């Protein structure tokens, strides 16, 4: 299945990404990269709106919990400044058209990406799961539970992870974690999402140009 793109390189598909090069001028699937929904979406099998911390509902409008149609949301997960992963979180609403979902899957999977379906909730899957865990790891470091090296080594050796939580956060940029975590804390108000002190420090230093 072919796709057309409106908008330029983005966090999901940076410059030189093969997904950008594979786009055609006219197709049944329209991909909007950091572009507002507009009349070009009409008549398409699927229109895929790139999301960041915004909800799909902000683009489609919401009424009575019966939302859905051919407009879907998506985000390609990235660990901060790391290159994008192969994961596409495909955001659907209650009445999203099955043909639109199938078309979105075909487009992304055709590009070698893996699609995980989720509903239109803050943080989708990965951010919602990871941010509390990363905050806990940062807090453990502050509390002296173990050194950073041992915290990371424990996760690699004990759980078979390719990297530890803190080395991953530092590599991607702690300020990115702060932004994602703060947005989730605003949405849910639960302590696990409150950005850990080290993330707050990183965000403040960055804001000051440090």
């Amino acid at each position: 299945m072919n796709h057309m793109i409106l908008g330029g390189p983005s966090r999901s598909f940076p410059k030189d990404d093969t997904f950008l090069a594979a786009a055609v001028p006219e197709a049944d699937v329209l991909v909007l990269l950091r572009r507002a929904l507009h009349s070009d979406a009409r008549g398409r099998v699927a229109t895929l709106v790139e999301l960041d911390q915004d909800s799909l509902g902000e683009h489609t409008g919401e009424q009575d919990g019966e939302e859905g149609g051919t407009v879907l949301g998506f985000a390609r997960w990235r660990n901060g400044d790391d290159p994008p992963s192969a994961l596409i979180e495909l955001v659907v609403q209650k009445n999203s058209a099955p043909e639109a979902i199938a078309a979105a899957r075909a487009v992304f999977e055709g590009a070698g990406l893996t699609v995980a379906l989720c509903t239109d909730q803050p943080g989708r899957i990965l951010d919602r799961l990871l941010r509390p865990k990363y905050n806990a790891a940062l807090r453990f470091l502050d509390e002296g539970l173990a050194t950073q090296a041992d915290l990371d080594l424990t996760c690699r050796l004990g759980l078979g992870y390719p990297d530890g939580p803190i080395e991953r956060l530092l590599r991607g940029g702690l300020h990115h974690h702060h932004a994602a975590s703060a947005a989730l804390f605003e949405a849910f108000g639960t302590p696990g999402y409150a950005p850990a002190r080290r993330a707050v420090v990183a965000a403040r230093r960055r804001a000051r140009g440090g």
Partner: protein
Amino acid sequence: MSSIQKVGVCGAGGTMGAGIAIVAARAGFEVVRQDLSAAALERSMRDTAGFFSKSVERGKMTAEARDAVLARITDTTALDGLAGCDLVIEAVFEELSVKQALLRALHPLLPEHAIIASNTSTLSITEIASGCGREDRVVGMHFCLPAQIMKLIEMSPGVNTAPEVFQAAWDWTLAAGQQPVRTQDKPGFILNALLVPFNNDAIRLVEAGVAAPPDIDAAIKTGLGYRMGPLELIDLIGLDTQIRLSEAFYPVTLDPRAAAPPLLRRMVAAGRLGRKSGRGFFDYGKPGMYGA
């Protein structure tokens, strides 16, 4: 360099205890495996012999080396069979009163210099040692499952552990070919403190209708490069075990993430325990053993 020569393992009839005994025997230590159940000891010794025979088949050791390792292992159902050990590692049922009673019983049997290590994953080392008579010679030594494969050991001193005792136990883990990491005597140490709430969060995602289990696991594996998703992992360790872990954590930490989610309790009530019952967050068709 470790001065420890003879190692006892309590609860060696179980999976973890048997694995720890393999680690010690493989590294050249004389090993006394103790369990109250003779049948469990017999069964685990068969598994142990099978493990080493597989190592021979795979060219990881010679038949002579296997025979020498097995000759270093003796079994006993009596605690006093551990009398000459320099180090006793307990891997008995994860219940504070059980472990405390064991340590109190061990203390008069062991030489003065002997160290007792607890393989607890959730309990406090200080509490386990409390009242045993040698609180200064008790350390936390948490192996990962399966112990004979996984190199990591979380090492934690209790409040009363003597620094030289902790160092001696640390040196022994190195002599046994393991990778120790130092942590504090806090609930779950590092691994379970991160993992138990994380697994509960994954269950809450299902409960909140954010995504279905296959999508959550696919997201974790693809996005992070983990070998296994959290829901598949919970199925492997058992949903009932996840409740037990949560119940060990939550009252101590009062961390809402550590509390067992209602969906988890409903699934256990429905008999969906994971792989061992044939169905958990995924359907396995038929019941399966851990690691099968």
